[in-house]
């Protein structure tokens, strides 16, 4: 194949996923713009945005990849409804990872902001928002990833090519929307 043919093939295969994820990213940005009041009320929240978004992609993208390989190899059963022990373990581990890393991001973020002498909300406020956002986004993304991968597999689609686009398009929107909801809940409860 010539350089031109290789480039054309790579372009054709990738453009649909990129366009889908661009649309997801734009809507995530729209939610972020709607979050201005919370960003102003909780100094330091903006610092956590890239870390929490990346965590959603890293954790639930890896869950999707793991389930895709396992379905191909017959290691897990394509069932919805908590009947498969390995599937349950993979889900529990993804949720644990997602929540633990969200908490870690908040603690590390506050420490770095304090060291730099920047303004930041209290440690408890940011950790509470981060953990709550981690839990909510984890539940939503787990349902999305498991459903799409399992249902897709049953219908004869390749789960490897399904999981990636699902996580990239929904991950950012769900990631930011759950940060917004978590910030509102924590501020309402009086953590601000």
């Amino acid at each position, binding site marked *: 194949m010539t350089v031109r043919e290789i480039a054309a093939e790579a372009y054709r295969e*990738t453009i649909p996923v990129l366009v889908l994820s661009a649309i997801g990213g734009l809507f995530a940005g729209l939610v972020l713009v709607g979050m201005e009041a919370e960003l102003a009320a909780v100094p330091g929240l903006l610092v956590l945005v890239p870390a929490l978004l*990346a965590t959603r992609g890293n954790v639930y993208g890896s869950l999707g990849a793991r389930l895709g390989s396992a379905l191909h190899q017959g290691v897990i059963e394509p069932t919805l409804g908590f009947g498969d022990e390995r599937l349950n373990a993979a889900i529990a581990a993804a949720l644990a990872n997602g929540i633990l890393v969200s908490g870690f991001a908040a603690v*590390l973020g506050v420490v*770095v902001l304090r060291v730099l002498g920047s303004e930041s909300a209290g440690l408890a406020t940011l950790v509470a928002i981060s953990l709550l956002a981690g839990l909510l986004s984890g539940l939503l993304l787990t349902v999305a990833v498991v459903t799409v991968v399992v249902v897709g597999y049953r219908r004869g689609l390749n789960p490897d090519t399904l999981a990636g686009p699902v996580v990239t398009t929904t991950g950012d929107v769900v990631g930011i929307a759950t940060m917004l909801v978590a910030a509102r809940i924590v501020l309402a409860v009086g953590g601000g």
Partner: protein
Amino acid sequence: MVEGSAEWSVSAIVRTMLPLLCVLTAIELVSGLVLESFEATLLAAPSLLLLVPVTIGMGGNLGSVLAARLSTALHLGLLSFSPTDDRLAGNAVATIGLSLTVFPLVGAGAWGLTAFVGETGLTLGTVVLIALLSGLVLSVLAVVVTVVTTYAAYRYRLDPDDVVVPVVTNVCDVLGVLVLFGVYRVVA
């Protein structure tokens, strides 16, 4: 990956992934600190704020798709790390082409959505120009980061799927924020 039952216990999965996730989180906090330092600018120009997640996401996507393609080509023995390698050149050209296609649309979309809900803070032309230039610079950087990381994984005999994709995705995320603000400062 070995798929024995031991690898499917909750604690084994957490133990394998958590250290890498914490390192990646530390890398991502760098881009968070850059965002924070521009908070006043972002709040005054909502179309720029709207561009943040999509720029971060596209940077990571361009890098991870290229990384996955190069890793597969490497596994299949189709790739050699030489500047004259056709597969390397073709994929690099495709990455830049994809970026130049999608980013102007993203810029127009960002301006349109902000205009729909309120003040944009910047003109349509400025937002499209910022998105286009950010996409161009970001895709070139994504190619460099991906090729260097894939080469390093190959040299040190690490599985490119396990190492390259997470590293490239998160490094490109950080570069996305840096490039967006660099371009904004030059253009606006």
